[in-house]
Each structure stands twice: as C-alpha cells, then as structure tokens.
C-alpha cells in the first residue's frame, strides 16, 4: 500500500515537474516530447513506488493501523507492547489479539483506494497532457504556420534518412566511431526539434549548418588521420622489407636500389667503376704532389716563408686526400650495394609474389586513393560494402599475422586508416546531405556529392523555396570543357525568409573579387562572362 501511495506521490511530483516542462515547451523555452513527459511521470511514479515499498513500516505503527481498520479495540497495538514476563494479562491479551486477527485479510484492511495522492497524480498528468497537446496542436496555427510545420516535419524525415544512410548503415563496418555517435546524437536532436516544428526556419537552418560544419570538420580530421595511418602503414611495410633483407643476410638497401632494372643496375655499376677510377687517379696525383712537398721540406735552403707556404699546401692536400678516401670508400660501398641489390630485389620480388602481400598492397592503394580523393573534396572511392570487406580481410590477416611484429603494426595502421576513412566519408556525406535540405533555402537537392556537377544545379528557372526565400539555380557546367569541379564550397544561404542572415555589404566585395578572379583566369565560358559582369554590376548599384 505504501508502494501504491509512493507511486502516486512520486508520479504527482514528477507530473508537477513535467507540467512546468510542458509549459516551457509551449513557450518554446525547453523542448519536450510526449514520450519525454510520459517517461518523467512514469519514472517519478516508479521511484516513488519503490521508496514507498522499501520504506520500513514499524510493527507498532502497522499494529495501530490494523487496530483502527479492523476495529480491534487496540488489541493488536497493546499486544505488541505487552511483555508476558512482566504481566499476567499480557499473554492472554496477546492470544485475544491473535484470535481476533485470525479472520482478517490484509486486502480488506488496505484496499487499493483511489485517494488524494492518486487523484493528484491523475489530475496533474492530465494537465501535463492538456498543456502539451495545446502547445503542439496545429488547430491554433495559421495556414502559413501549418505549412511551415509540414515542411519542418518533412525535413526531419530527410535528416533522419541522411543519418541512417550514413551513420547507422548496417552494411558499414566497423561500427560507429565516437565522433559519428556524437554527430548522430546531434542529428537526432535536430530531427526531434524539426519534428516538433517549433522553431523558425532560420533557426532550423542555423542548426543544420552547425551540424554540417561539425561534420565537415570531423571528416577533414578523420581523413587526415587516415592519411597519417597510411603513412604509418607504409613505414611498417618498409620495416617488413628490411626484416626480409635481414633474414636473407643482406644489409638494408637505400631507397630506389631494389626497384632497378638489370640494365639500370649495369649502367650504375659502370658509372660506379668510372667514378672509382677517377677517384683513384686523383688520389695518385695527390700522393705524388705530397711526396714532392715532403722532399722539399727536408732541404735546409728553404726560407721561412717558403717553408710556411709548403706546410700550408701539404695540410690542404692532406685534407683533400681524406675526402677522396672517404668518397672512394663510399663508391666501393655503393659497388657492393649495387651488387647486393640484385639479391635484395630478388628477395622483394619473391615477397611481392606472395598473394597476401599483393592483396595488402591492393588494399593500401585503394585506401590511399580514397584518402587522396577525400582530401581533394571528391567523392570517396570506397563504398560501404567495400569498406566492410576490407575490414574483414584486414582483420583476418591480423589474426593470421599476429606473431609478426612489423606485419601486426602494418595491419593495425591499415585498420585504423580504414576506420578513419569510414568516419571521414560518412561525416562528409552528412555535411553535404543535410546542409541544403533545410526549408526556406530553395528546392531541396537529393544530391550528396558536390563533385558530380551533372546532378546539381539542375533547375532551369527560379523556384520558390519551401520557406520564404527565393533561390535561383541554373543548369550548365562551370567550365567550357564540361569537367567536373573537384571541389565546390557550400555556403549558408544569404537570404532566409524576409531577412538576410549575412549582411549584404559584407559579402558582396569578396564575391565580386572572386568573380573577377575567375574571369581573369578564363574559368568562365566566354558566353557567360558578360552575364557575370552584368550581374555583379547590378548588385553594386
């Protein structure tokens, strides 16, 4: 019964809180959903019920209550206090109380009543529901507001679609990174707020842009990380090669040595021999001159000035000799390296024939291509399905090669790079996917990748956007060649509804300058150059 009462009290308190929340929701100060409010009330009820249920009831209190309810004339309360050892009447009194208590059922004494706490809980809950429904009913809205709400709801569905396709795609592996989860949470919040349609189009757009910016930043960072991981993987691969040489008893090879053709190697050896011969000839000439100087210095007829001159020359020649010796040693070393490089190349060629190596190289190349494309603002070259397969392959290799340290490091770097590639791709998709979809900024686009200019700018005439903004879009390629632009920068619309989000005077000079620059670089087809000039001229006026 205490649980029942506790439930009612808890639910009442929670409903009071929910009521305040619902009022704030109405006033658009703190958004709430029906589920949120219901959960608050239910949570309060459950907590209250648990507290009530777990709160101990002293036996004496219970006894007194039963006495009242069962009309036991205080028999039970007295029996609980009496001490049979001290009083002759205590024991029979207890027996009497027990006899009277025998036929009484607890549920008769403490029935589930609908008392004041329960009434309060129900009333407050009803109030919460009423306030929430009144605050969200479309009946009180004007036709324009209804239309705006409809658009917002549609946009909520779009944002959800983008989220599901890019961040919660079950085909995509590995699972979501922390950044993606955070982004997904933000998108869910935006979806809820759009669903409730209680904010202005400007606010909705601002929020969408914030998320898009955030997604872009995440994408950029993840791609940078992916590239770093690929560099790490390359280093690990070099280490693997060094290990292979070591195993074959060969010294480490300088870069490029192992990629020579036999012809190149032969030429290099010839070159080296020629170089050694030259060095030896120079060395002989030097030694001859040094011997002459040594002989002259033995003579007593030399003046002090002449002797100093000869000593100076000898020191210079000694230094040259040392340099030549060093150069000769290097040439000899190169000769040996060239000789060994053929063996090293054989080792590498053997390694390259390994199917595992080939597969890994292929994966690395794909990942690198993907990262490079992303860095250039292009569409990722890897699909979700490909990523998943790569992930599985890399993990399988990692399991097989876990004993090889260098291979393990390589695979680890590759897996990390893959994860970052996925995050980068998904975040970029999100950024591009939700940015142009907000109401009031023109016709929503179904395109995701800006690099594909055959899909964007597909409307011939100006269209009225879902909100109050007009956006003019034109078809055509940006360059006379028809090539797709590697990168298109998306900016928030300058005009939303009846007012501008960015002051006109602030953006015009920079856009004008960019247009002039494009004209100077001949990036704009001749037939359009006049129109561009006219356009900016009219804006300036």
């Amino acid at each position: 019964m205490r649980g029942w009462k506790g439930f009612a009290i808890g639910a009442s308190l929670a409903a009071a809180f929910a009521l305040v929340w619902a009022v704030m929701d109405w006033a658009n100060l703190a958004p709430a959903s029906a589920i949120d409010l219901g959960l608050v009330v239910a949570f309060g009820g459950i907590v209250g019920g648990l507290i009530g249920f777990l709160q101990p009831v002293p036996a004496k209190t219970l006894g007194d209550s039963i006495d009242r309810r069962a009309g036991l004339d205080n028999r039970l309360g007295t029996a609980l206090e009496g001490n049979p050892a001290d009083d002759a009447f205590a024991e029979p009194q207890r027996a009497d109380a027990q006899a009277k208590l025998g036929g009484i059922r607890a549920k008769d004494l403490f029935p589930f009543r609908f008392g004041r706490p329960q009434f309060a809980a129900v009333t407050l809950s009803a109030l919460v529901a009423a306030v929430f429904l009144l605050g969200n009913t479309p009946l009180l809205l004007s036709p324009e507001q209804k239309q705006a709400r409809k658009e917002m709801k549609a946009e909520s569905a779009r944002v959800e679609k983008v989220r599901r396709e890019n961040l919660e795609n079950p085909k995509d592996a590995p699972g979501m990174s922390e950044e993606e989860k955070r982004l997904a949470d933000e998108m869910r919040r935006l979806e809820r707020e759009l669903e409730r349609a209680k904010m202005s189009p400007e606010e909705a757009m601002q929020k969408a842009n914030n998320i898009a910016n955030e997604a872009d930043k995440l994408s950029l960072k993840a791609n940078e990380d992916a590239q770093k991981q690929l560099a790490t993987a390359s280093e690990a691969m070099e280490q693997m090669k060094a290990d292979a040489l070591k195993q074959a008893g060969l010294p480490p090879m300088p870069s490029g040595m192992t990629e020579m053709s036999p012809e190149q190697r032969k030429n290099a050896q010839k070159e080296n021999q020629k170089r050694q011969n030259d060095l030896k000839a120079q060395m002989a000439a030097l030694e001859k001159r040094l011997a002459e100087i040594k002989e002259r210095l033995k003579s007593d007829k030399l003046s002090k000035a002449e002797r100093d001159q000869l000593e100076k020359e000898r020191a210079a020649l000694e230094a040259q000799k040392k340099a030549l010796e060093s150069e000769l040693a290097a040439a000899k070393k190169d000769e040996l390296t060239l000789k060994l490089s053929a063996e090293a190349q054989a080792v590498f060629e053997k390694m390259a024939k390994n199917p595992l190596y080939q597969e890994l190289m292929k994966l690395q190349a794909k990942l690198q291509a993907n990262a490079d494309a992303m860095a250039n603002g292009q569409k990722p070259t890897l699909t979700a399905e490909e990523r998943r397969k790569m992930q599985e392959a890399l993990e399988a290799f990692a399991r097989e090669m876990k004993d090889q340290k260098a291979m393990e490091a390589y695979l680890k770097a590759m897996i990390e790079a893959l994860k970052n590639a996925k995050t980068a791709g998904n975040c970029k998709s999100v950024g591009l996917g939700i940015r142009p979809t907000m109401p009031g900024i023109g016709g929503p686009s179904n395109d995701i990748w800006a690099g594909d200019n055959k899909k964007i700018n597909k409307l011939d005439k100006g269209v009225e956007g879902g909100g109050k903004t007009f956006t003019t879009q034109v078809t055509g390629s940006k360059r006379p060649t028809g090539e797709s632009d590697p990168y298109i920068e998306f900016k928030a619309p300058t005009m939303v509804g009846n007012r501008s989000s960015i002051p006109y005077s602030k953006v015009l000079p920079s856009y004008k300058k960019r247009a002039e620059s494009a004209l100077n670089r001949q990036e704009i087809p001749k037939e359009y150059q006049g129109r561009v000039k006219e356009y900016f001229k009219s804006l300036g006026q």
Partner: protein
Amino acid sequence: MDATQQTKKFSETFQKVRTEIQKVIVGQDDVVESVLIGLACNGHVLLEGMPGLGKTLLVKSLAQSLRLDFSRIQFTPDMMPADVTGTNVLTDSRAFEFRRGPIFANLVLADEINRATPKTQSAMLEAMQERSVTVGGKRMPLAEPFLVMATQNPVEQEGTYPLPEAQLDRFLVKVLVPFPTKDELREVVRRTTGNETQEALPVAEKEDVLEMRKTLRQVQISDEVLNFALSLVVGTHPTGDGSTDVARKYARYGASPRGAQSLVSVAKAQALLGERFNVSKEDIKRSLKSVLRHRILLNFEAEADGMTTDQVLDQVLASVEAKDRDPIRV
C-alpha cells in the same frame, strides 16, 4: 486463577450485582454502571440529579447485594464535622469513648453534600481521600471497601455551599441522573405503590469487590491509548502544549493529573466489562464525560455562551480525534 478467569469473574460479579440492583431500581442503567465502576475502581461517585430519583435506594440495594454496611448522611447547613466522622463522648465510667459517625460504613450516601458548610464538607472529603478519620489525635481507618456516593442538587438554592474544585476532583466520576422516561416512571410507580416490594439479595461479598479491584489493575493499556487519554486531559487545559481551541476559549482550569488517573481506571473497568484484557480508545471516550465533567472549571465566556462542560468535552474530543489519524494513510 488465570487472567481469563479473573476477567470472567469480574464481568460476572459486576453483572450479578447490576441485575440484582435492577430488580429494585427501574432504568438508570448508566447510573448503576457508574456506581459499580466507582466501587470497582476504588473511587467515589458524585451524583447530580433532582431529588427522588432513587439515589438512596440505589446505594441501599448495592449494599444489600454485596452484603456491605450502608449509611446515609443528609447534609444540612448546621451539620458539624463530628456529625460525619463521630466524636468522643463521656461515658458513665467517666471515660471518653469514641462514637463512630456515619462515615464508618462500606457504602456512604452523602445526600445533598453541597448543603453542608465548607468545614463539614472538608471533613467528609478528607475522610474520602485519606480513607481514615483522626479524632482526638487518634487515627482510625475506614472500612474497606469504602465508597461514598454524594449527591448534589443542580438547582441553585438558598443555603448551599458549592463544592470547591479541589474537593470535586476527589470524586472518581460525576454521574448525571436523568429523569426517568415515562415507561420507567410507570414501572417505578407500579412497583412502589403495589403490594409487592422488591429487595436486592446478596450476590457477592466484599472480597469479591476487592478481587475486582485487583483484576482491574492488571488490565493492559498501550502507549497509543494512553497518549490518547492524556491528550484529552491536556486538551482541557486553557494553556500549555496540547491545549485545544475550545479549552483556550472556555476553560479556566483543566482536568488534574488525578483526572488522568481516573480516566484510565474507569476505562480499564469498561474494558473488563467488554471482556477485554486491554483498554481501547472507545473505553476512554466512553468514560470521558463522567470522569472529567466535574474537573473542568469553565470561564465567564462559556457561561455567557451557554456552554456546558459536556459540550466542551465533546469539542475537546473532536479536536483530539481530528489529530489522531491512522498512522498508515493510503
């Protein structure tokens, strides 16, 4: 004898004596019960009612049914204390001999006690409290059991001396003797004017009374019930913690600690009559008016508003009951 037998015997003895008295007294059940409870609780009874309602007959019948000594003192303004307690008289052998007064009986009917002077009242009430009489420096205990049943006329009359509060407090209960109903009156007239005369026969002994008193003391009372009783007593006070609004407005003095003792004692007797081993709140409520009505002194405002002590007690009870809620509220 175990507790159950003791309780049963209490109830049986009480019932037998009551039945015997009811052979003689028509109606007045509450009065008879109050007198018997007074006897069981070792307390005295103050009766307030019109003359000729059978008070003397009641005490006489009670004495007969219990085989106890009975005496009656008709108080008058010229009565002296010695007329109550007794006095030393010079005998033929030129020695003083103590002649016992009417107080030396088991049951004493002090009729119209408020007609005696305060001096005589005081002597009577002192004997009631001390249960002994001191004459000529010699202390003489009174018989046991000892019960004084005093009557006073409710109508203000010439030559009356109202009992002071301290003396009223010595009565266990104050019983209002109502005028009999028409049916009861018919029966009274029929019995007293016909040929047949009913007399109470002895059905118990004084030892039975003493046994009843012993049993009564063993009745259990829980803290809850005791607190309730004390709340009622405290609630009659015009000041202090626990005083009630009605007492603050109408009471000059509230019930004394003796009032609390008496309330619990009478409630215990009620419990035994209900064949219970414990006192209930209902017992306390049932005993409330008879025990406390003569212990509360009302102020002028109460008199002006026409409030009686019973009405004040009703309101005190209502106030205390309002606070006495079920500890588990669902």
